[in-house]
């Protein structure tokens, strides 16, 4: 399985500020995904990030609010912009390993964000 790290692991931020979350993978992967998990809830896909192309956003999520970078095959960032308390969630990156036959996705440990 993949070894995925995220930074920061948690943060407390003020309303109106922005936070950039980093996701690092131990090997090259094509598909990376960013999810949001609100307290006690399921996982909701924010966007799919492929290296060399613009991220694809799901309904309800826009690039101005959640800009994503994917500069290479092992790294991605998600920025939560102009934050409000409603953005308080766990943000998770995941990857799909190209060597697996199925759509096996592996998740990072998550970034727990609290917006005051």
């Amino acid at each position, binding site marked *: 399985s993949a070894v995925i790290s995220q930074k920061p692991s948690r943060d407390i931020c003020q309303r109106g500020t922005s936070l950039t979350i980093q996701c690092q993978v131990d090997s090259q992967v094509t598909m990376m995904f960013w999810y949001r998990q609100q307290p006690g809830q*399921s*996982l909701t896909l924010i966007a799919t990030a492929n290296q060399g192309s613009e991220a694809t956003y799901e309904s309800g999520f826009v690039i101005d609010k959640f800009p994503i970078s994917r500069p290479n095959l092992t790294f991605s960032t998600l920025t939560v912009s102009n934050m409000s308390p409603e953005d308080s969630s766990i943000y998770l990156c995941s990857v799909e390993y190209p060597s697996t036959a199925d759509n096996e996705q592996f998740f990072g440990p998550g970034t727990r964000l609290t917006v005051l």
Partner: protein
Amino acid sequence: QQQVKQSPQSLIVQKGGISIINCAYENTAFDYFPWYQQFPGKGPALLIAIRPDVSEKKEGRFTISFNKSAKQFSLHIMDSQPGDSATYFCAGPGAGSYQLTFGKGTKLSVIP
């Protein structure tokens, strides 16, 4: 539109008992059904997965049963242990080729 419906929302099982979590899906094009296990403060971890060409897959104490005609699949945890206490998510392929759509989760508590 919820594509994967999971039940129950919470489950309490005695140590040594069998835990059963059910999921129903709508999209008959689904061909991959994983289960994830999530402990508090951690990311979800892939537990076990099945493709619809088999009706059952077993890995240790964890078994997936798949009923294609009923469009249902379930996770069975045999000899449940307190260390199994976690939230379990079923999933199926999402709108895109590589996406996953998740059930709402089942919080399992295994009591001694």
